[in-house]
């Protein structure tokens, strides 16, 4: 997107690529076409033809030439430009078809009609945009009073629906960030639990799982102990043994790990 502020004449808002000297300038000017309709309007003006009677073959040819130039100059040609190229070619072929003298009025409709309508609409909005621009320039020349202390007591924001939504999104994003920090903290605690269990197994041969869980101060800690035990089983550091169904589970150290853990402590 190009900022209008880069233009020298504030009143001039038309994209007017001319045959420029350097390729860089050419590039800049070509990229000023907002879209396919802009490019078409420019070509129609350049060729000095009537918008109501567009010589479609000539304009199509020129249009395609511009697209090629844009591609060569490595200006990304947006999909919309290609869609318009297809439309132009389609209109061109329809124009070439012989007219059926017995066709109804509707069938006789000029294949360019819809395009002409679109171009006229586009032209109108360009004109309106120009007027808006000029009005904004005029308006910027009138200044309001400086802010007063009373305003500063009220350093607040007037609200739109979009803002309400954006604020909500920000709150939710912020919350997500906090949750992630909390998860990170939990992981630390789980590492602590693993170390605790290892230490217990170093001092006594067997540890009762029930007693381990009973030490938990909170539900969360219980879950963490449970996860720590599972982790140690997975790492083949401990063995679980249950003597009776619904009975207590005994945690013992695995033999192979014993010497290793002794070194660590």
């Amino acid at each position: 997107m190009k900022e209008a502020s880069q233009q020298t004449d504030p009143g001039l808002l038309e994209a007017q690529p001319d045959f420029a000297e350097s390729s860089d300038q050419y590039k800049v000017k070509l990229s000023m076409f907002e879209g396919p309709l802009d490019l078409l309007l420019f070509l129609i003006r350049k060729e000095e033809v009537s918008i109501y009677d567009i010589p479609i073959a000539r304009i199509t040819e020129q249009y395609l030439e511009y697209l090629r130039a844009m591609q060569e100059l490595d200006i990304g040609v947006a999909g919309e430009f290609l869609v318009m190229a297809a439309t132009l070619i389609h209109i061109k072929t329809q124009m070439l078809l012989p007219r059926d003298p017995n066709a109804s009025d509707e069938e006789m409709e000029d294949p360019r009609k819809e395009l002409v309508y679109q171009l006229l609409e586009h032209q109108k909005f360009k004109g309106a945009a120009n007027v808006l621009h000029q009005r904004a320039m005029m308006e910027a020349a009138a200044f309001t009073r400086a802010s007063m202390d009373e305003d500063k007591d009220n350093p607040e924001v007037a609200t739109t629906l979009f803002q309400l939504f954006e604020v909500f999104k920000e709150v939710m994003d912020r919350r997500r960030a906090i949750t992630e920090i909390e998860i990170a903290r939990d992981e630390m605690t789980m590492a602590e639990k693993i170390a605790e269990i290892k230490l217990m197994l170093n001092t006594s041969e067997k540890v009762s799982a029930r007693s381990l869980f009973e030490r938990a101060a909170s539900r969360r800690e219980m879950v963490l102990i449970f996860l720590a035990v599972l982790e140690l089983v997975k790492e083949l550091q401990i063995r679980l043994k249950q003597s009776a169904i619904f009975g207590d589970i005994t945690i013992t150290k695995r033999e192979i790990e014993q010497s290793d853990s002794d070194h660590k402590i």
Partner: protein
Amino acid sequence: MTVDELKPIIEALIYVSEEPISLKQLAAILEGESADDIQAAVEQLSAEFNSRGGGLEVRQLAGGYRITTRPELSEYVRRYLKSQPSARLSLAALETLAVIAYKQPITIPEILEIRGVTSTSAIKTLLDRRLIVARGHKPVVGRPMLYGTSKEFLIHFGLNDLSELPNLEDFEDLMTS
């Protein structure tokens, strides 16, 4: 209160108001005064300000009244405030805004159809600058969001209401002539 008594109060109120103050707001503060008297007072006040040839004028904007400096004096004011004119809108944003202003409420796909190009980044800019606002969903498949212009739009472009927008048909002949 007489109209002459109302005038200084209204002048003070227009002055302190951060946004253009409407007749309705004035009436709410001047409880008990007739709407006709308030209107007459505002109109006389505007006329006096504007004929005085001073540095200030009373303007009608976005359905309300506001005191601003006279545009002819902008050079001095800018020099003093060392202010840069606020960032101008891009051509894409201006054209998108024009489409929204004339066709509101309108959805993004409808804007695309008219402009022939996608306008999402322009719409984001316009929302950020509060020149347009979301206006609920269109009750069609996909329930796309509808957009319209805001009060800020009227203020930014010096309009009292949307009827002051230039007639779109006036731009038709620019091309063909």
